[in-house]
């Protein structure tokens, strides 16, 4: 699966969590631009994990600050799975 297709699937998942309807770019940050709190992060991560049948551990999450980094991480995890 290519990056664009992966990103499109994640974009569908983020909609219910993007309460303010912020425009998302690769540089958008979850804590800043999307104002995700820790509970939102957990639910959003769980949604991605279930959609792609992967695990994104807290250790990996710590490295992910932006939308672009998330998409890259999911692409990588689905390729190695």
């Amino acid at each position: 699966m290519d990056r664009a297709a992966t990103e499109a699937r994640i974009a569908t998942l983020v909609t219910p969590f993007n309460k303010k309807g912020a425009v998302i770019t690769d540089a958008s940050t979850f804590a800043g631009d999307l104002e995700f709190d820790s509970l939102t992060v957990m639910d959003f991560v769980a949604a991605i994990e279930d959609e792609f049948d992967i695990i994104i551990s807290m250790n990996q999450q710590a490295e992910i600050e932006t939308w672009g980094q998330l998409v890259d991480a999911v692409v990588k995890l689905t390729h190695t799975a």
Partner: protein
Amino acid sequence: MIDLFSRFDEMIALRETVRGAGREDPFGLVMERVLSPTEAICNGRETILLGTYNYMGMTFDPDVIAAGKDALDRFGAGTTGSRVLNGTYAGHKDVEAALCEFYAMDHAMVFSTGYQANLGIISTVAGKGDYIVLDIDSHASIWDGCKMGDAEVVPFRHNDIEAMEKRLKRIPEGAGKLVVLEGVYSMLGDIAPLKQMIAVARAQGAMVLVDEAHSMGFIGPNGRGVAEDQGCLEDVDFVIGTFSKSVGTVGGFCVSNHPKFEILRMACRPYVFTASLPPSVVATAATSIRKLMHAGAKRAHLWENSRALHGELKALGFRLGTQSPQSAIIAVIMPDLERGAAMWEALLREGLYVNLARPPATPAGMTLLRCSLCAEHTAGQVQRIIGMFERAGKATGII
């Protein structure tokens, strides 16, 4: 110079909100005198204690006190050393023996606090390449144990068996797995469906650690906790506990039947690199633990107290953390931090101490007034407590 303390500005602001104009500070309470397990003089006022973890009221047990005094006289005020050097006295071996008797298990390791027990066991047992799968509402000491170690950390939604199973199934083949659960979750006072969760964890090849800090002494036929109550204690690899709650002193422990368990005394840094508990503390703990093995009547009374308070608060219209009383903790849910602090203060003025709990310690950003009952609360005290809640609740507009 960058002031490193600027990162606390948000916390300082929050503290000011709680402290408000002329209010008593919920996080600055001083108990000037302690009259009994259930009463103290707080800020100059005689106060019923409903926010301690003194579930079994052992703090003033005469046998416990006598054992502590005797050890103080015979062994001195402190050990001034690590358990693995000069800090293991006869009393430390005896309290570990008492724990083995209490849990009917082969090994017990005593730490200086329960916090350090979680820190030490979790960070040492799960290493690089292993996975820790844990409940999102886990206690801070569990999270800190995860953070201190090198394992991958994977949380799942509170008490969600299916979410836990899915995550276990996705872990790469060949990786070690540790599932970390609690018997009683101390914020809402709810219990975990350990029997199902542990069965799933076992089926997925995981080892299991259960923190029974808030159940020891009164849940389960022998007071061994929720896992015993649900008949699955033999499938638990590590039970974590504390002396700071039902046992009535301070200290922490891990009990286990693992044949190689004793090696942890060498490998576990929060065990090695800190001084051991004072002789008086381990003597009080050993005496208390052995008395808790035969505390059936006290246990029954604690449950009566818990049921009575839960039922009456619910009838008054308070929102509670659980639909039915599941433990000795009853959490009253407040609409927000400000009104929670006002209610807390109104109760203190009535002469009642409860715990004000707030995010991030609480789940879902809730503000809670946490009540924890004691086996030494009389039925009369429980009735007085209910009257205080009614008056304070009406005065602050919570009910």
